């Protein structure tokens, strides 16, 4: 299984990532990708200027690799790609790009879904929203934990 993971300090070009992934997926029948974007508003509806993603200097990269590997094994994926931003992110920019390739579509859909659920709760990032009203740390919701738990890991 080819698992590619990367911590991106600059903008992610999701189109280029997907094109590269598809080009390398020779022999597979399905590629499913997901692109997570920084929203322009906070949960209370107020405007956001920035999203800051703090990361751990060593463990964050390892957590991305562990999640990608777990997804690849769980769904027998042929290839996995996870690219995750860190640092200051503007609304509209890509925070995370995930792609899963497999011989048939169901495993690729489930694999990409699983990867995102795990990234929300198990990737080593700390997210802070910054807007005109100040800054606020974002932590996983009960729904995020329920999403991750449904895979039975």
């Amino acid at each position, binding site marked *: 299984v080819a698992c590619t993971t990367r911590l991106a300090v600059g903008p992610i070009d999701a189109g280029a990532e997907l094109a590269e992934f598809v080009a390398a997926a020779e022999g597979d029948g399905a590629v499913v990708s997901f692109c*997570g974007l920084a929203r322009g508003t906070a949960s209370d509806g107020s405007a956001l200027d920035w999203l800051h*993603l*703090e990361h*751990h200097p*060593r*463990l964050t990269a390892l957590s991305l690799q562990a999640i990608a590997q777990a997804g690849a094994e769980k769904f027998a994926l042929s290839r996995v790609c996870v690219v*995750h931003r860190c640092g200051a992110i503007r609304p509209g920019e890509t*925070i*995370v790009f995930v792609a899963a390739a497999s011989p048939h579509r169901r495993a690729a859909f489930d694999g990409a879904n699983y990867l*995102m659920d795990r*990234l*929300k*709760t*198990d*990737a*080593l*990032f*700390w*997210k802070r929203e910054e807007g005109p009203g100040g800054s606020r*740390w*974002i*932590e*996983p919701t009960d729904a995020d934990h329920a999403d991750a738990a449904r895979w039975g890991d």
Partner: protein
Amino acid sequence: MPVARIGFYGSLADIFGRERELASPAEGRTIAELRTALARLDPEGEAAILRPGIRAAIDDRFVGEEAVALPGQRVEFMSPLSGG
């Protein structure tokens, strides 16, 4: 007395700073003991460090409450994660 170097991530860093040092005996302190020592620093810190979901690591390995951090080892407390 030797010191334990402690790092903080997420909202914990707003309260305790990115890193601080605590006096530690030569035989070290458990994670639970370090939490208690940090909780004594201020009321806001107490609520933050003792709440559920705060993970601890020693030298980049996640550990439980009874794990002992020896002087010179790096301890880190991490707020709940929020990737994706």
